[in-house]
């Protein structure tokens, strides 16, 4: 498990625990918990509070001049965690009935969660500091120059065979970068990464044992170089895509919460406060 994805694992295990509890209630009562009864209602209330936290806390931290506690990256992790656990609890709250406004709210929740995944995917294409601040193109260029210099220094100390192998790989990378449009690169970058790794693995196999051991030390540096060059190539498009995503995601979220509040008011009127 990488620490980088801890929020996804935490959400996965929390949802697993909630599922176990849900199944225990199903087995104990012999029926699917109703949305209007204690357990089902509780799921809905807690799930909605988590969704509300998802919608507000990260946004407040990002925009407020006063609420500056905690790193942005950690708030984003918390945003993702509550954004996965909250909707799952709301899904269980539905008791698997998707009629009327409640069904529309659930459908919107699913759409917003999927949209959130897409947003995170685009977000990770944009270079940032550990605090989550966007790097400017000039910062990126400086990083690339520094990485190139490190690579050249390392290569000078290597045998001709290793140098040729690395230069062959860099050439193949360059060709692919030129061939792919930045917009396409944004969406297929995991596949491109796998392709590069395969190329480098193939080159290493051709080397002798000692050269291969030396080449392994280059893995991280090559990966860093690849990432930076790719980020530079698609920077403009990634920013545009994030802007477009934001334009669509925000209204979806606004509609979701508006309808969720209407659903809550209706549930209070027709059920909770009914005498």
């Amino acid at each position, binding site marked *: 498990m990488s620490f980088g994805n801890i929020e996804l694992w935490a959400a996965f295990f929390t949802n697993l625990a909630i599922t176990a509890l849900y199944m225990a209630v199903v087995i104990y009562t012999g029926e699917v918990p109703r949305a*209007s009864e204690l357990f089902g209602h509780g799921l809905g209330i807690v799930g909605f509070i988590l969704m509300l936290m998802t919608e507000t806390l990260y946004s407040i931290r990002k925009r407020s001049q006063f609420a500056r506690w905690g790193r942005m990256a950690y708030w984003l992790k918390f945003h993702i965690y509550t954004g996965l656990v909250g909707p799952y609890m709301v899904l269980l709250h539905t008791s698997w009935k998707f009629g009327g*406004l409640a069904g529309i709210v659930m459908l919107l929740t699913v759409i917003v969660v999927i949209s959130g995944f897409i947003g995170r995917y685009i977000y990770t294409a944009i270079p940032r500091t550990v605090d989550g601040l966007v790097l400017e193109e000039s910062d990126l260029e400086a990083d690339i120059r520094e990485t190139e210099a490190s690579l050249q220094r390392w290569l000078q100390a290597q045998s001709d065979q290793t140098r040729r192998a690395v230069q062959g790989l860099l050439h193949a990378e360059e060709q692919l970068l030129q061939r792919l449009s930045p917009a396409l690169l944004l969406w297929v970058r995991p596949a491109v990464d796998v392709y590069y790794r395969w190329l480098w693995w193939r080159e290493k196999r051709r080397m002798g044992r000692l050269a291969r051991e030396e080449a392994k030390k280059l893995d991280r540096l090559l990966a860093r170089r690849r990432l930076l060059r790719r980020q530079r190539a698609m920077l403009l498009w990634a920013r545009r895509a994030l802007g477009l995503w934001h334009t669509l995601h925000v209204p979806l979220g606004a509609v979701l919460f508006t309808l969720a509040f209407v659903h809550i008011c209706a549930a209070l009127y027709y059920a909770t*406060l009914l005498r």
Partner: protein
Amino acid sequence: MRGRGLGCLTPLGVLAALASLLLVVGVTVARGGVLFSPGPLNAQAGEIKGGVRSHAEIEACGQCHAPFWGPETMADRCMVCHTNVDEEVKTGQGMHGAFLANQEQPFCRGCHTEHRGPEGVLTVLDPETFPHETTGFPLTGAHQDLACSDCHTSGDFTVGLDAACVACHQEPEYHAGLFSTACEDCHTTKAWRPARYDEPHTFPIDHGARFGSTNSCQVCHPTTLQTYTCYECHDPRQVEWEHREEGIFDFQNCVKCHPTGREEEGEFGEDD
């Protein structure tokens, strides 16, 4: 804030929220509370009440759902159509009158549900807390351990059952035709046995039993009450030997010569 509000408060976000709200209002004005219904109403048709044959024919939510700020309750609106139940509640008569005898206000939703689909059940009772005594048939003894469906086999709980024992229990072969069907004269609901028998018995019922106690019926009548045997206690070979020794060869009908069970009272006994 840095001159910007929450992320959702973009012009497009606010516009989308307002548009969705308008849409909800529009649908509600045009189609009533269809958006808020947790499920279709029951469509099983019955006699016409309040102008409809089934709840599914009710169009406005407000016909049943009273606003929480008003004095009216939902039960009040139930009674507008279900006048027969209202009558029972007011007079204290019938099943509902008995159920609601100790309640200040009727609470129909305690037993009756809705929005469970056209074929959905309308009455849900908790067998653990249901006051069965209000039906005129208190569940006592072994009846407490039964499932509802053991007696209400049709699944229709609104139809009263015959409270006579023979409606559910068959008279056993053991005493078929000997007694009336007033089972409670001898039996309790706790168990069929032991049974209490207070009527005169042709043979001393405490014969051979410990002092102050009686024998159970099965001691002398192991298969049916219409036959008896003494050989559950007395050794038939010894009985035969003792009778033959005294020249008695017709000794199969014991009570003919021993009507009270005493040895001496026989035709050839010492008393004679």
